[in-house]
Structure formats: C-alpha cells, structure tokens
C-alpha cells in the first residue's frame, strides 16, 4: 500500500495521454453527453471561427512556396503556381538558419528545465510551510513580479547582464526563467495545496525524508503541472522578441524571432523569402505543440480537477 503511493502518480502521468477523453467524459459537464446527439449549429460556428486561425497560416505556407515574381502580385490566397523552394534556400542563408536555430533551442531548453525545477522546488517549500512568515511572504514577493512591467526593468537588466558578462543567450535564458517564476510558482502552489496531506504523511511514517518525499512522491505527482509549466516556458522563451533583442549584444548569437526583422528593412519585397523564413521560425514551435498538445490539455485539465 505504501509502496504503491509513489508508483501510482507516475503511471497516471503517462497514462494521462490516452485518458484525456476519458477524463473529459468522467469529469466534464455530462448534460446531454449520453444522448449522443451532436450540437451541429455550435459545431458549424466553431469551424467558421477556426478558419480565422487557419487562414493566416495558409497564407504563410502558400506564400513561402511561391516564386518572388508570383509573391509580389498581391494575391495572398492563390496557390503557388510554379512550386518553388527558392524562398527557403535564400532565407536559410540570409538568417544563417542552423546557428540561429541552435541559439533558440539552447535558450528554450535552459528556460524549460530551469523553470520546472526552480518553480517546483519553491512552490513545494512554500506550500508545506505556509504557516511560516518567510515562506508566505516569499510567495507574495514572487507573485508581485506579475505586476512589474518589463519596460521598468529593461535597461537596468541590460546594464547588469553586461556587467555580469551575461549579455548572451545564457543571460536571456536566466531572465526568461525569472519571468516565468511568478506564474509557475502560482500554478504549482495551487496544485500542491490540493494534494492530500495524508499521502505525504504516510510516506513520512515510512521514514522518507523531505527530499525523498519530494523526488519520489511530490515531483511525479506534479508531472501534469510540470508539463503545462514547461510548455508555457518553452513558448514564452522560443517566441520572445524583446528580451534577446535587448540583452544579447552579439548579433551572431541572436534568436530566430529577432532575426526576422531583416525582412522588414533589407529584403522587404521578397515576400516568398520572408514568408519562408517566418515559416521556418514558426515550424519548430508548431511541431512541438502538435507532439505535446495532449500533454498540455491533460495537464491543464488535471490541474483544474485536482
């Protein structure tokens, strides 16, 4: 029974990928669910709404595969007439894609790992010591940053990262983690409060130390929330424009979104090249999303049910 406790959360975390829909059926609004009649009017409205998401992406893809001469004719909705990858070839060279991609991956990876670990450590310490002033106040201290506008900090951060020799992608990643903390600690803390204390107490009765309770029981239990926190951290980091553009001093170490600026100034009429480059900047995030979306949804859903 007691050995079972640390194992169970692990299985739910992996099992949750398939159980998204089971969850929804069990925990969701059940009015009419067993009736089996689909609500077609709402479905049709939703499909029309979905077009507003898909059309800009459709335009991005078709423009990217056009030739320069077809791209400038102004018809965004036409299909590429001669199908061309020239745009991609040129965009690849102009942005030095492999290097920019590497920098973006590095920044995002540090941000995700750093955010999940630091935020879960902090949230666990806070949630289990809420009766102590230091921890309670730390929570509000971290949370207060959610109201701190980035522009207030920007130039001082530029100066400080310069002094600390962190005016590079590593410095950007550290700042990304710091900006993710408030939201992530909030999510983890709310989640931790909903975990019954008996679970941890029974592990402690078996002689587990705080560290063991955290790594073997709490951290696995947090897995769905970690997935959510991790995905949000990845997206914020991968897509950020303002921080790398201000912090990173060496243009050769710039991330993908920042590099897209060149198509507004230097190559503004080569629409096929610029859209190919936009597509290459978007694609990794879209692929990660398509692979992980069920974890995100399961994480958010389970976080709410717990």
């Amino acid at each position, binding site marked *: 029974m007691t050995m079972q406790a640390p194992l169970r959360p692990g299985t739910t975390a992996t099992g949750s990928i398939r159980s998204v829909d089971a969850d*929804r059926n069990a*925990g*969701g609004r059940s*009015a009419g669910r067993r*009736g089996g009649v689909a*609500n*077609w009017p*709402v*479905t049709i409205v*939703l499909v029309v*709404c*979905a077009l*507003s*998401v898909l059309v800009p992406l459709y*335009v991005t893809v078709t423009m990217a595969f056009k030739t320069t001469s077809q791209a400038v004719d*102004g018809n*965004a909705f036409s299909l590429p007439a001669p199908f061309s990858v020239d745009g991609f070839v040129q965009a690849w060279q102009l942005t030095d894609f492999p290097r920019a991609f590497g920098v973006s991956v590095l920044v995002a990876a540090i941000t995700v790992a750093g955010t999940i670990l*630091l935020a879960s*450590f902090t949230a666990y*310490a*806070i949630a*289990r010591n809420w009766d102590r002033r230091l921890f309670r106040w730390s929570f509000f*201290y971290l949370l207060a*940053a*959610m109201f701190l*506008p980035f*522009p*207030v*900090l*920007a*130039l*001082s*951060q530029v100066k*400080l990262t310069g002094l600390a020799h962190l005016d590079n992608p590593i410095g950007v990643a*550290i700042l990304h983690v*710091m900006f993710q903390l408030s939201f992530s600690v909030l999510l983890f803390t709310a989640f931790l409060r909903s975990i019954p204390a008996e679970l941890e107490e029974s592990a*402690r*009765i078996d*002689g*587990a*130390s*705080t560290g*063991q309770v*955290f*790594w073997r029981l709490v951290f696995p239990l947090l897995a769905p929330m970690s997935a959510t926190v991790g995905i949000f951290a990845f997206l914020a980091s991968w*897509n950020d*424009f*303002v921080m790398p553009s201000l912090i990173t001093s060496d243009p050769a170490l710039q991330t993908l*979104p920042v590099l*897209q600026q060149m198509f507004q100034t230097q190559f503004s009429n080569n629409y096929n090249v610029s859209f190919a480059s*936009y597509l290459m*900047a978007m694609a990794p*995030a*879209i692929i990660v*999303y398509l692979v992980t979306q069920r974890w995100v*949804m399961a994480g*958010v*859903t389970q976080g*709410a*049910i717990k």
Partner: protein
Amino acid sequence: MATTTTESVTTAGRRRRGGAAPRLQAGTAGTRRKGRRLDPLFLAFLLPTLVLFTLAITLPAVMGIVLSFTNSVGFGEFRFTGLTNYVAVFSDPAILQAYLFTIGFSLVTVIVVNAVAFLLAIALTSKVRGKIALRAVFVLPMVISGIVIAYVFSFLFANSLPALASAIGFAPLEQSILANPDLAWIAIVVVTAWQAIPSTLLIYIAGVLSIPGEVYEAAALDGASSWRQLISITAPLTAGYILINLVIGFKNFLNSYDIIVGLTDGGPGTSTTSVAMSIFKGFNGGDYAYQMANATIFFVIAVVIAVIQLRATRGKAAL
C-alpha cells in the same frame, strides 16, 4: 535520476531497520501544526530562487526607480535632480497619448479576449463534433511568435484586405487600415486577441471542466435554461479562473510591444505608440532617466489597476 535510485535504496534500508525511526517520524507528523522544526531542505529549495529573483528582477527595478530621480543617460556619472523627470513626463503630450492608447487598447483587448475565450470554452466542452481537432486549432496561435505573426498579418492588412474590399466594393477598407491613424488600433487588437485567446481558452476549459456534472444535472432538473446555467453556475464557479485570466491578460496587454512593432511600429504618426514602445525608444535616444520616470509611473499605474481589478472581481465572486 541517480539521486532517486540512491534515495530508494536508503528508504528500503531504513525500513528494514524498522522500529525506532518510523515511530519518531510518526510523532513529528502528529504534532505537525505546532512548533514543527523547519527542515533545512525547504530553505535550500526556497533561497536560491529568492536570491536569483532579487538579482534579476528586484535589483533592476530598484535601480530603475532610483535612477528616475537623476539625470543619468544610462552610463557614466549622474546626479540627483529630484522630481524634474516626473514633471517633464507629465507635461509630455507624446507620453500622455501613449498612456491613453495603451490603457484603452488593453481594456478593449482584455474584454474581447475573455469574452471570446469563455464562449469558445463553453462551446468546446459541449457536445460538438471534432472536438479534439477544433481545440487543437484554437490553441495553435499560442505557439507562434508575436513578432512573426504580426509580420504575416501586416502583409494581410496592407495587401490582401484592401484587395478583398475593393473586389466586393466595400470602400472603407480599400485602404490599408494600418495606414489609417483612426483604425490602425483595430488591427493591433485583432492580432493581439488572435494570439492571446488560446492560453485564456485553455484556462477556461479547465475551469468549465472542473464543475461537476451533477451540478448541471440538478439545475436541469430544476428547469434552469442553458443561459441561466451559464450565468448562475458556470460563471460563478469559474470566477477564480476569470480572475486569473483578467489579471494576466490585462498585465500582458499593458506591456504590448512585439505585435505593435510588427504591425505599425507605433504609427501612423504616433497614434499606436504603446507605453512600452515610448520607453524603449527613449533608451535609444539616451534620455534614460527620463524614461525611467515614465516606467516608474507605468509601474504605479499597473499596480493600481491590478488592485482595482482584484477588488472588483473578488466582489463579484462573493455575490
């Protein structure tokens, strides 16, 4: 990974030794609430975060606020000049316009985003076909960089929309709305909402799904209409989620930068210059201390609005 294995071994070892240690632990667990000793590990979990956070966030914030009372240009020597910068900021029409634009834009956007996301969440949790695919599509904008999608939309607003408008003979849209000082803000609201709806939607879906189905069954038995269920059950029971979405959304929109840079770059003229843009433009212009005063005022406004928002929503949740 390695630590987990060692830990499991020691746990097993301790368990085999039996008796004394577990009983001691049980005693500690029993008196948990009163005078419990603080495990140093909790401090080790908390303090690195506090130190890093203070260095990366609090220190720059304090530096910025202190320097706003000086004549610093961002480097080198400076001296304190009192409230000079603040007086100048308050009489600067460009900055006042940036505040009006930013707050108005944020209000409109937070309403649009939350209304659409809430309705979408309800629709997506009801009995519709292709639920999984639809949800996947609606969440998609969240994963796309703001600056990149703004570039895509700026092409659509500048080229495709006018072409479409003249094809159907709709005169007001035949010119790019990005070039119209009175309409450019609409484009910014559209793209900002396009990108902000997914995360708001996900939180609302979680909120709607957290309501037990029995509540609706009971309401249906009592003859409550779907509208009545929405107002009396879904909205109040998701009040916590609404609060989170409003606060996070409004705070994000106040800081709007990427999408505006990508769409209008603050123009035409300065009609869509946000506060964040005016502050960053000041950095390049060398009037660092002046823009720090602007930033400090911006911070105070953000806090005041957040407090008002929290109070307002809390009042509604209590009703």
